[in-house]
């Protein structure tokens, strides 16, 4: 493996680590806002690292440009989505979902988080 390939491998592995961090945050953090915070940050960094690794591997300007565009769009989309979902999470004061069969039981068992 050449130096470039080692570099790419390192970038990809780091990206994978950040995705893992995002997933752990999604599963372990206590409330929706904290989870959102962990998820969007970690995923964007993860995607950046993976895109960089792939750009190193791809080795052409066109591929690099496309990967950069994908990452920028992902930033834009996750910024807007996170903002909107956070607003929803703030406005959301209960778990009551009239179309949810198990909502009541869950709300009772989780103490209405």
């Amino acid at each position, binding site marked *: 493996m050449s130096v470039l390939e080692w570099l790419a491998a390192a970038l990809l592995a780091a990206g994978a680590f950040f995705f*893992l961090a995002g997933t752990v945050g999604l599963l372990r953090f206590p409330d929706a806002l904290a989870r959102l915070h962990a998820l969007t940050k970690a995923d964007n960094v993860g995607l950046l690292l993976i895109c960089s690794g792939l750009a190193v591997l791809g080795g052409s300007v066109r591929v690099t440009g496309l990967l950069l565009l994908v990452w920028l769009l992902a930033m834009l989309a996750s910024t807007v989505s996170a903002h909107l979902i956070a607003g929803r999470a703030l406005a959301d004061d209960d778990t009551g979902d009239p179309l949810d069969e198990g909502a009541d039981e869950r709300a009772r068992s*989780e103490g209405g988080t």
Partner: protein
Amino acid sequence: MSLLLPALVVFLLLNLVAGLWRVFLGPTAADRMLSALLFGSTTVAMLLVLAQWQQSPALRIAALLFVMLAAITSIAFVALTQGRVAARRAPAPPVEPRQ
């Protein structure tokens, strides 16, 4: 390198499976949307890796489509919030068509 890329795909897939637990658990709709967000970016990453690994550049375009359109579902989800708040304030939603 021929091993690293598929290994990365498997790793991301396992990540996704773990994230599914949050969709299952909820408890709020926002939590479930969060997980969908995670799946979106993970899928994009996987498509990009697959494009490199399988030498199939068109998959990068597919990934581009996903990131480009990812926010649409979130915006629709917010329409859901406001509709819900509105519905709670006024039991009878307005029925006039918007001209």
